[in-house]
């Protein structure tokens, strides 16, 4: 079954406490090269049959209005897999 993948990231301007915590943990375990970490989310929308342009348009709509919080998050990518 093909999937539409929606990727959401916290807005670049805003604090990402989860990313900060992981970055600190990485640094404590010696991974100094990874200076900064930001953590977003990946959402898979499973579609039966072919993914149509209309499906993608609808995915874009729900990604921006429902799956992400436009005040603090950005939809950074929508693509089809499989």
């Amino acid at each position, binding site marked *: 079954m093909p999937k539409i993948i929606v990727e959401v990231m916290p807005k670049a301007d805003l*604090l990402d*406490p989860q990313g*900060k915590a992981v970055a600190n943990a990485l640094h404590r375990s010696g991974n100094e090269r990874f200076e900064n970490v930001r953590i977003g989310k990946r959402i898979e929308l499973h579609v039966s049959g072919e993914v149509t342009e209309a499906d993608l348009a609808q995915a874009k709509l729900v990604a921006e209005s429902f799956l992400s919080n436009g*005040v*603090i998050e950005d939809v950074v990518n929508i693509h089809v897999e499989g």
Partner: protein
Amino acid sequence: MTYEVDSTAVAASTPEKKQPWKELGLKKDEYERIVEILGRRPTSAELAMYSVMWSEHCSYKSSKIYLRQFGEKVTDEMKKHLMVGMGENAGVVDIGEGWAVTFKVESHNHPSYIEPFQGAATGVGGIVRDILTMGARPIAVMDQLRFGAVEHPDTARVVHGVVNGIGFYGNCLGLPNIGGETVFDKVYQGNPLVNALSVGAMKHADIKLAKASNPGDLVILFGARTGADGIGGVSVLASETFDADGPSRRPAVQVGDPFAEKVLIECCLELYAADVVAGIQDLGGAGLSCATSELASNGNAGMRVQLKDVLLRDESLTPEEILMSESQERMMAIVPPKKLKAFMAIVDKWEVETSVLGEVIDEPRLYIMWGEDEIVNVPPRTVAHDGPVYERPVKYPKWIDELNANGVIAAGLRRAEVASDLAAELVQVISSPNQASKSWITDQYDHYVGGNTALAMPDDSGMVRVSETSGLGVALATDANGRYGQLDPYAGAQLALAEAYRNVAASGAAPLAVTNCLNFGSPENPEVMWQFKQATAGLADGCLALGIPVTGGNVSFYNQTGDVAIHPTPVVGVLGVIDDVARRVPSGWQDEGNNIYLLGVTRDELDGSVWSEVIHDHLGGKPPVVDLAEEKKLADLLHGATLQGLLASAHDLSEGGLAQTMVESCLRFNVGARIWLGELQERDNLDTTAALFSESTARVLVSVGREDDVKFVGLCEARGVSVLRIGVTDGRGDDALLQVKDLADFSLQDLREPWAATIPDLFG
């Protein structure tokens, strides 16, 4: 992208440059005043600072002339326990045994509409930092919430976000949430109110003040890094209303990190204990602009700061943005150079990032550098304290005459006569959204973390132990009734004060001090300004009558959608002290066979009541009569009875009247009762509707063990408080009954089900 620095030298040589003062919320005359103060046009950094510090939210420019009376209408007796009064981050009161407490309530209304979760969460974080700044360990939080109509589709979004945000931040911090209010009304649809209160405790010697007075001391920023959070949030979010088309214009809000705040709390307390800070200020609204100018202004000194030394999360921030940023979980300390090493050892231990930004100077001037360029050169007082003060036009709203004339009698609201109809109305009232159990909300908050909570929701006040050795503790209650405020803002503020005061007294504590959060519409509307004037006068007069001082507070204007202002909602918090929390009085009936007494007099006062709203969807008339002398007498009686251990329970009467209070008293511990209203109706000349639902003030329902009966009644008579036995507790468990003579026998189960189901059915 290269950034062109607008230094003071550039500003002096380019007086003609157009500046976006209007977009930043400044008025023309305000901009001209800045030019006059500086003798040149401000740099863009100075303009940013002035605009944010002179915004309504930071400068209190419309409210200042009215807030003064909280400091004027006081007696020496009232000031006896007051250690730090208004104007500091929070007021401090002496509660005895060498302990002091500090408490304050603040609004986070506008951010919570735009982003309910983070808005509410950072509201909690902000007020907790205010308490921490006074040198205290935060010990509890409370919140006062107003949402739109329950059936409106947007209400659930706001409710879920706000409740989750408060629970998330408070629970992560490990602070018990001990009370608050939740009210739904369509007037808050496009403008919910999210007020947050925090209380903290410290020893007298540990009080800290936000001032930088010793030249040579270092200015240190520590805590989270500075990012682009909520840039302009204070001036833009808090001072302008939302567009009619809803939350389309979405400025950056702040994201909080409660675990970072927890570390900051412990770090600060260790810094205080080691005596390495001379002054401290939290960074909240207006960020660095506020912290630097206030510290310098409070200390009658100046400061020289290098802005390039601020640790950034995002290197692309401009100096103006750094000055405006409202990144959370940051503090500014003033540290003598010889204590720097000890200071650094402590912040390093807590892994808190720290940077020395500059030093305190002798000259009363704030210099901020951006590398080699001087971008700010101002007298700090003009930024922090000598902002504009307005006496805005005030106009009596004519519509209020019509509203006041349309009371429940004039409007001819039908009163049920048949017992079964009255019984049905009782169930309808207690299960209406504003009267129903709020445990779906409050259960999401941790009440008991820390092990010092003596009382929490749904008791009359929240109570926490301060001294673990003596049991000394404080009780807090907050109240506000926007419907009463709309009918009469002067009385509305006093009713809020009276109810909070009564709640504290009912839990066994002696009321000591007041805080407030005054939520109103636009001050540019003369009718709103009239409401504000009335409410502040009512509150100040009320505090004087009760003999408890206002220790601080917060004003939130521009609470409106379009042109329609919210009902005046002056949230009043009263703090009381109890010498041993083991003596606390619970709100529910505990034992069978106790006598139930109604204290105070009931009048036919149904205007603005819950009954008029729920049964008739009506608002009009005059709110209940306020009798503060009677309230004081009642509180003194309750205090005396508590000391003698005479009260098995006490629960105040307010919204929903006697009906609400007796149902809640039953359901608290599942103890039934037999109640008769006949003598009450005869003595006070009431019909059954008034006996059940009148919201007359200065009334409390208490239960007293039979062995203490004579003593208790004697005490009431000696103190001149009217007392009437209206029932006896009887039966326990879900099979128990609330039997109201000549009305109905309710099984507790039949009362609990609708009362408990309303909120989960709506939002669960």
